[in-house]
């Protein structure tokens, strides 16, 4: 059975390592924060100017001056630091953020990503996404394997305007975990009960299947 959003977030959380500084995009990526493995410390960076982001505030304790990059009210954890937007993207560009998790509309087999613009629709802007994908040393994409029409979002080449090129390292979809390298999606894990054949049929780009593909563990 394919994963739901929470399970995707939970699986991505397994990629976290002790001491990681992590930037989580809007949507599923944000939920990764709820599944940080016990015993490790991960510091969340919010690109509007905060290291050490904490959970949403208790009701009544919202503070208009304290929001995340999704404009949601948040809190800080001990050891947090505020800074301006230039320093924030400075630390992103210089590779100090260990892991970036973000959503995508399309990913290509060479690691290109499209997630900011659909021609003919209102363009809202790229926000910080282009900076993040151009600079992060480790990018994991959280996405559905197919769009609502059932078409694969893992393509030989992106059709939508790109956000960045050759940057995605790993994809966790509702069906599979894949590594992106050498111009192909390399299947690492299947969602519980999902067959290699189903994954293959829903992957338009080149999919490399080597040996037995284990089911994901959480």
């Amino acid at each position: 059975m394919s994963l739901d959003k929470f399970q995707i977030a939970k699986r991505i959380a397994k990629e976290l390592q002790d001491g990681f500084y992590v930037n989580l995009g809007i949507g599923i990526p944000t939920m990764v924060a709820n599944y940080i493995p016990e015993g490790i410390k991960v510091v969340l960076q919010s690109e509007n100017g905060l290291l050490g982001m904490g959970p949403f505030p208790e009701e009544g304790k919202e503070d208009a001056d304290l929001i995340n990059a999704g404009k949601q009210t948040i809190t800080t954890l001990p050891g947090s630091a505020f800074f301006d937007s230039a320093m924030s993207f400075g630390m992103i560009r210089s590779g100090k953020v260990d892991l970036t998790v973000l959503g995508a509309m399309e990913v290509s087999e060479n690691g290109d990503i499209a997630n900011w613009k659909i021609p003919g629709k209102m363009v809202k802007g790229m926000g910080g996404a282009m900076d993040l994908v151009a600079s992060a040393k480790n990018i994991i994409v959280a996405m559905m394997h197919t769009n609502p029409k059932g078409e694969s979002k893992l393509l030989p080449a992106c059709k939508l305007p790109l956000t960045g090129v050759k940057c995605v390292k790993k994809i966790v979809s509702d069906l599979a975990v894949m590594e992106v390298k050498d111009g192909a999606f390399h299947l690492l894990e299947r969602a519980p009960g999902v067959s290699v054949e189903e994954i293959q049929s829903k992957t338009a780009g080149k999919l490399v299947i080597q040996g037995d593909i284990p089911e994901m563990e959480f």
Partner: protein
Amino acid sequence: MKKTFNNAEEATQDIKDGAVIMLGGFGLCGIPENCIAALVKTGVKELTCISNNAGVDDFGIGLLLKKHQLKKMIASYVGENSEFERQLLSGELEVELVPQGTLATRCMATGYGMPAIYTPAGVGTEVAEGKEIRNFNGKDYLLEYAFNSDFALVKAWKGDTDGNLLYRDTARNFNPLMAMAGKITIAEVEELVAPGELDPNNIHTPGIYVHRIFQGANYEKRIEQRTVNKKKEA
């Protein structure tokens, strides 16, 4: 050396039609509410606004949009604003979308006297169209130019009459960068104090960058996405 003004109307009265203005803030967080209200009042038009966002329909830069005071918007994200969308699609408004880090760094470049900066953001995308690309150590970068603006309108938490500013939490965002970048920088603060009352080690924007300062009134500080946890978390 008198930098203090009584209110936003006085501090912004020489902002004329066609001016290029920077506005601090991220979403509705840390925006110069009083300055925006003053511009709405004067009705100055044909403005080019450089700001990360364009406000919402009835707050922030959205108030200027509603009165058709903007010619052009330079921003990284302009969602959450239906009037913006309408003006853009009808051709009333020009928009230039800039990656958020590029926007921030182009402001900093101005304040730091650097005519241009190199950034990898946007390489291989339509943002790179027409721009100079240069390879350093095997990686491609775009050349992006420092911003030129007539005025920077910023919002700080505390300030002193010499123009030193201190921001609060994530309301800092673009404010210190734009404060450095304005030919004339106008700062509104929640609390204006005498020189010496702020700790010189904790000044975020040194007064040299600030030309005018006033204590703002009636801050609404609207929350865009109110998210809460029902139960207490550790």
